[in-house]
């Protein structure tokens, strides 16, 4: 029992050191300061790359903490369709991600999908809408641009009516994207959310240019979101023997499976050609994609091309069809062999015929999928306002906005959604402050140095406090805080399962994978409450109270350690005023 007494006898060894119990509050080291730190949030490169300017860093932060409600609301602030975009967006965010310079980009796309799906399965409606402001807008077309315009207009208090030519909503989302990329239930559930929020869609309403003036009676503005509805033709003899690719996709989507068997030549190199080829494969046919340049120049998204080739689809490059002939039991396509020209056009390699070299290809069907263009009646080049994603023209005193594929050069769902958002904000500024204020307001609402406009900034949300034009580069990330962690690989169905059906190919992240991936995000430029600044402050000048972090200027000596340590460039050092 006396072990402690034995081993710890009274210690009489001399021990005299300097110590004090006086605190340091009286030592106001703030007088030493000539530079001061400041919490200054900035734009992450992913947000800068996103056509919608989504606050990705914030979404990943919430998602990694399982705060799906806030993650969803952060996306919905800029994008009405997270579950759709989480599937069909070409995710330029990932190509811009700073993490690629450490190991691999964060899988932002799949995280958005997870959050979007969580919203659908938990029936989360967005934010409280404001009271209606009395103004009413009409929207022509229930595709991505039209639905986006309606959504953001409703968020600004406008009453909206959508006029849709067909009998269902979605536009290109439903007619142009196969269900193995975007299942019906996801598409319809996300659109249903807008319906639930009081946005009216009137179906089977075909509107022509000459009827626009009649809208002046009931509407304060009109948004043309009709999309590219006319397929571009091949302009070669025998073209009438080819099947229109966009029409084919529409038929497949509405389960009118046309009977297409055997070898099928799919002409084109864009997403439509890939979608057609992959759909045909699922219907049991043997598609061959024929493109007049090489794979490198194909306008389709590289990951879509990869998926098609992985599924075993043949790609024939440098071949341009010049003639289609009907032969017994088959079609014969005459193909001109193309070669690279020495002249390149705006950085893109041009191709010219390689003399008279030709090939003949015998197939059962030919599908033309070389793209679409707008209906001629919407053509116009006189504008009152011209912005990156929309144009405006006064027609008989009615503000008419051209949106979506009618104005944008990057014909993607995400750009179309951005177009609807931009047009609505432009209208709101126009009505409240007049034409002259639009450019100024857009400059204030810009995310990074691109063209994305933030609805959150426009609505005076928290993002307004940021230095939105400053983009966080990898050099500004304190990489010492981030060990290498490889990206989480997304789950895919087995090829046997998806090649024989139109079931979704990518099955997304489960919750654990999603959290793992979202936790890899640097959260560039935003304060995620990591507390590193407070821990490192040698003067204990950084205080945390009432859920807020602030700097006690009486004690901050301006050493800048907080800024050097901040893992994610959410602080700045400024010279004393």
């Amino acid at each position: 029992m006396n072990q402690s007494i034995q081993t710890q006898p009274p210690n009489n060894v001399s021990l005299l050191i300097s110590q004090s119990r006086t605190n340091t509050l009286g030592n106001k080291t703030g007088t030493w300061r000539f530079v001061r730190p400041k919490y200054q949030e900035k734009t992450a490169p992913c947000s800068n790359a996103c056509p919608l300017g989504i606050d990705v860093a914030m979404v990943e932060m919430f998602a990694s903490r399982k705060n799906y409600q806030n993650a969803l609301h952060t996306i919905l602030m800029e994008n009405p369709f997270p579950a759709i975009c989480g599937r069909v967006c070409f995710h330029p965010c990932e190509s811009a991600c700073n993490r690629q310079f450490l190991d691999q980009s964060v899988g932002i796309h799949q995280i958005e999908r997870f959050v979007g799906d969580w919203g659908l399965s938990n029936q989360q409606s967005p934010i409280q809408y404001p009271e209606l402001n009395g103004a009413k807008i009409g929207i022509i077309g229930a595709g991505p641009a039209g639905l986006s315009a309606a959504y953001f207009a409703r968020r600004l208090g406008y009453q909206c009516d959508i006029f849709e030519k067909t009998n269902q909503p979605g536009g290109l989302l439903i007619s142009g994207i196969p269900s193995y990329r975007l299942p019906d239930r996801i598409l319809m559930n996300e659109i249903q959310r807008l319906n639930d929020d009081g946005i009216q869609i009137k179906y089977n309403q075909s509107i022509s240019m000459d009827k626009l003036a009649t809208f002046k009676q009931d509407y304060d503005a009109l948004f043309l979101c009709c999309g590219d509805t006319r397929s571009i033709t091949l302009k070669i003899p025998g073209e009438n023997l080819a099947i229109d690719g966009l029409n084919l996709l529409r038929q497949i989507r509405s389960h009118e499976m046309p009977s297409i068997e055997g070898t099928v030549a799919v002409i084109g190199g864009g997403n439509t050609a890939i979608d057609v080829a992959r759909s045909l494969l699922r219907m049991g046919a043997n598609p061959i994609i024929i493109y007049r340049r090489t794979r490198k120049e194909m306008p389709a998204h590289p990951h879509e091309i990869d998926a098609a080739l992985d599924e075993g689809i043949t790609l024939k490059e440098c071949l341009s069809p010049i003639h289609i002939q009907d032969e017994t039991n088959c079609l014969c396509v005459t193909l001109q062999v193309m070669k690279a020209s020495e002249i390149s056009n705006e950085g893109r390699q041009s191709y010219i015929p390689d003399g008279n070299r030709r090939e003949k290809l015998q197939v059962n069907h030919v599908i033309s999928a070389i793209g679409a263009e707008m209906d001629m009646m919407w053509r116009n080049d006189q504008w009152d306002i011209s912005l990156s994603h929309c144009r405006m023209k006064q027609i008989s005193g009615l503000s008419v906005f051209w949106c979506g594929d009618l104005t944008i050069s990057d014909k993607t769902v995400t750009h179309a959604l951005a177009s609807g958002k931009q047009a609505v904000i432009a209208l709101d500024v126009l009505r409240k402050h007049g034409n002259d204020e639009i450019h100024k307001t857009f400059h204030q609402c810009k995310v990074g140095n691109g063209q994305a406009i933030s609805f959150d900034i426009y609505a005076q949300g928290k993002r307004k406090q940021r230095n939105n034009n400053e983009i966080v580069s990898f050099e500004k990330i304190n990489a010492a805080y981030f060990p290498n962690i490889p990206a989480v690989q997304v789950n895919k169905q087995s090829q046997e399962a998806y090649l024989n059906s139109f079931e979704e190919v990518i099955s997304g992240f489960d919750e654990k994978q999603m959290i793992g991936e979202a936790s890899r995000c640097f959260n560039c430029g935003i304060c995620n409450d990591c507390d590193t600044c407070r821990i490192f402050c040698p003067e204990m000048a950084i205080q945390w109270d009432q859920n807020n972090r602030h700097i006690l200027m009486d004690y901050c000596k301006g050493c800048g350690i907080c800024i050097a340590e901040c893992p994610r460039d959410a602080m700045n050092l400024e010279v004393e005023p």
Partner: protein
Amino acid sequence: MKEVLEGSHAVSEAVRLARVKVISAYPITPQTHIVEALSEYCANDSMDARFICVESEHSAMASCIGAASAGVRTFTASSSHGLALMHELLHWAAGARLPIVMAEVNRALGPGWNIWMDQSDSLSQRDTGWIQLYCETGQEVLDTTLQAYRLAERVNLPVMVVLDAFFLSHTYEPVDIPDQTSVDKFLPTYCPRISLDQENPNAIGQMAPPAYYMEMRHSIQMAMQSVLDEFEDIEREFHHIFDRTYGPITPFACDDAEYVFLMAGTSASTCRQAITTLRDRGHKAGVIKLKMFRPFPTRYIRKCLTQTKKVIVLDRNCSFGAGGIFAQELRSAMYASDNHPQIYSFISGLGGRDVTVDHFIEMFDHTEKANHPENESVWIGLNPEQLNCDNVKGKKNE
């Protein structure tokens, strides 16, 4: 349980058994194996300790100072240039009276670049206020490390456990590794006399003006002066539990010896062999292995040398301009005693060069013949061919 252990790992095992809470170190040959093993123990939960990786030895000691101020057992290890880089903080650790324990693997300083055994690195730190304990075998390394914690915590001074590069750090020997229960009995949970307390905040190490500073330095010296008695108690208890004892010095064949060698470290083993040869030839020769260098165990040495005519000191170091450091220390320790022996100073085995039985015989023969010690240390084992080689071709004045 006996195991064949590398000398470095004898330190690691002792640190693990001492239940150290914070280890901070920067790798340097020949020390690295010590902390390499410890980092693995921390990683695989064999130890409940934090291993702090740092960017330099200066920071390693700073981390230990921080952790020790918070009241936990700490450990670091270093060598040569690494120890030299720590120098400022060695003073701080002792001045702050923190019982930090460090393993110091004796290695030469460059240039010429040399990773081998030499005592200059630890002896350069003799005035920092650290207790220095030199070891000869793997077993002694393990035992001394455990004793070091008891001693450091008893007198509130940091302890350096010193072992020879490669001759000891990289040599495998059978070592009896004690069981945890016995170690816990010898080295109970640390009850710090200095410890930061969040409930009762205080600041330590402030400005001490002329009216206060000197007493603090006096206190360090008082603590150093108590070390011999405290170490005696600790060794008694250690012997009781583990049946092994070393003493501040370890004499061999000294009772009737007219000639006594004195040195620290592994060369003592070689010297004992030389003693056997000399005894066979009829010379009354013995050897003192010096374990404790700081504080200098004057009273033990004086007692041991009462019959001695001549002391032969081997220094594997050189204080340039003054000669072998152990010899200087011994001279000043013996000066005040009546009829003190003559002290002969030899320098040998620098930068990892072997010190052989023949070298000891040479030192003995030299000492036996001499009437008086030379004014300067005598160098043994120099290569005459290299001595006459001047390899720097300077410009001649014409």
